[in-house]
């Protein structure tokens, strides 16, 4: 019923997936023990040795890794192979101040590209497609991952990278691109621009989009789907674990299948570290089962989500994760309340504004100030001052209802909110805490 890149793995019965994980995990733990002194020390501190890990059920005995470990071990401390065996790095700016650098052997790249190829197939991609990769190329994993995946599927790959929207549109129209890969905010921007240029959804050759690397809401998905006339698929991944493709959506668009032949996912209580039963909401933790150069075990993603093994109509059997509620890295605490940018986005979209916004948090007299800059759109503008004020008030009320705290909404000119590498700068926090 579907289009699979590696059907025998993606649709394998659960017992088969479990048996594979039971076989791979003990081997991988021993491999890391022998090759990564940093992690071996953590294991020793916790009083656990590779002999204690007999199957995937023993995973919970192992110590966690976090962003702090990546910082402490920077740059080579978590590398498990000699540098001569590595063929590539990717890097992401860390929130802890140090960049994260991860290493790949050729096998690691193959594994990663397979995952991205599976994602493209799940979005309906075949070798008949023209796949435009408008994620940033370079250190960012988005461009490299989808580019490699697109090759594996056999799509005609158009490596536009991010930015230069006019040129993006020229390639989409002239080469009749059918699949677009980029961040959701950039997809929305391309959509807006096409609309401004007078293109209707039916004039646009795209049929599917694979959008990730940023939090986005269901409302934003519907909006992008409508403007571009496509089906928009979510893709998940993080540089530390390999990049996009660790999990991705299928035609069901209800949760992202995690590639369980390569990664074990757990949900833990972020406060106690305790593993939670299936269906619970908690922090997502990944263990890579067969990566060679940068094999992280029990890496805490800080993403809050739930997992489900409910049968999926697409035929894939791998566990599904919900869209992260927000990376705990993205979460802001304003006046003592947890605020996820994705919640703000939902309110904006529900009220007819574009999802381009910026949150500005500051502190005056020991009280947090909270401002949301929202770009004015032609649809929301009228010549009536009172009406524009009233609409702004509706937005403020909506934010209050969603977040529980009051935000000041400032209306700004279109396209005045900076976008870098196609990834919008969403939060400016000037508090010195």
């Amino acid at each position, binding site marked *: 019923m579907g289009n699979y890149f590696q059907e025998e793995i993606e649709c394998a019965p659960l017992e088969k997936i479990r048996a594979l994980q039971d076989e791979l995990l003990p081997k991988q733990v021993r491999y890391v023990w022998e090759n990564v002194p940093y992690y071996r020390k953590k294991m020793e501190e916790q009083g656990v040795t590779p002999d204690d890990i007999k199957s995937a059920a023993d995973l919970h005995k192992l110590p966690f890794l976090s962003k702090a470990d990546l910082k402490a071990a920077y740059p080579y401390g978590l590398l498990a192979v000699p540098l001569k065996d590595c063929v590539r790095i990717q890097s992401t700016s860390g929130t802890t101040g140090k960049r994260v650098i991860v290493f790949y052997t050729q096998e690691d790249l193959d594994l990663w590209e397979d995952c991205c190829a599976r994602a493209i197939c799940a979005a309906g991609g075949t070798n008949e497609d023209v796949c435009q990769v408008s994620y940033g190329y370079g250190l960012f994993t988005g461009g490299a991952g989808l580019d490699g995946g697109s090759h594996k599927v056999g799509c005609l790959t158009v490596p536009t990278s991010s930015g230069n929207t006019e040129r993006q549109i020229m390639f989409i129209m002239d080469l009749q691109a059918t699949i677009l890969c980029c961040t959701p905010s950039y997809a929305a921007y391309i959509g807006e621009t096409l609309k*401004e240029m007078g293109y209707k959804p039916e004039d646009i050759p795209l049929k599917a989009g694979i959008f990730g690397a940023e939090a986005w809401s269901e409302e934003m998905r519907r909006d992008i789907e409508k403007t571009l006339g496509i089906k928009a698929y979510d893709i998940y991944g993080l540089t530390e674990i390999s990049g996009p493709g660790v999990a991705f959506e299928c035609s069901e668009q209800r949760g992202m299948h995690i590639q369980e032949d390569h990664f074990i996912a757990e949900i833990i209580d972020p406060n106690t570290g305790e593993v939670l039963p299936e269906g619970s909401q908690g922090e997502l933790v990944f263990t890579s089962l067969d990566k060679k150069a940068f094999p992280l075990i029990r890496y805490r993603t800080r993403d809050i989500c739930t997992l489900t093994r409910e049968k999926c109509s697409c035929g894939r059997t791998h566990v599904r994760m919900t869209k992260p509620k927000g990376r705990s890295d993205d979460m802001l605490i304003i006046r003592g309340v947890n605020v996820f940018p994705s919640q703000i986005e939902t309110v904006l979209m529900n009220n007819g504004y574009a999802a381009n916004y910026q949150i500005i948090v500051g502190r005056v007299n020991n009280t947090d100030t909270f401002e949301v800059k929202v770009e004015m759109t032609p649809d929301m503008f009228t010549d009536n001052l009172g009406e524009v004020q009233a609409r702004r008030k509706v937005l403020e009320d909506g934010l209050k209802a969603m977040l529980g705290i009051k935000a000041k909404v400032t209306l700004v000119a279109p396209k005045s909110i900076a976008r870098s590498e196609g990834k919008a700068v969403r939060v400016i926090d000037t508090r010195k805490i």
Partner: protein
Amino acid sequence: MSVNQVSVFLENKAGTLNKLTEVLAANNVNIRALSLAETSEFGIVRMLVNDVFEATNVLKENNFVATLTPVLAYAIEDKAGYLNNLLQNFSAAEVNIEYMYAFAGKERAYMIFRVNDTKRAESLLNSKGLKSLTQEEISAV
């Protein structure tokens, strides 16, 4: 006939109005009348221009949000009492004015009105012998 007013959203910060006039000047759009309504957070510029099509195009190209609003324009004698006469007719016809602004020409003065039901207001005032100006007439002033 009502005329098209160009209404433009402005952020309330230094230089934005000037950026607007710069864009219009660079494209040879002549502003016939202009009024600015503002709050502490944002402003709305309302203006009559000689070339509505060109004005909206260049504004959009320069990332301004602009919309067209139908307004009624009347020419009156530039003498004491004439505005009063005009407004008496509005009252008599029970036409509600949302906002208005004015500019003085060489011989006559021009009054621009935004009302809630433009078509109805226009015909009521027309029946009182008041003929609103057309886009061409305003452009020619």
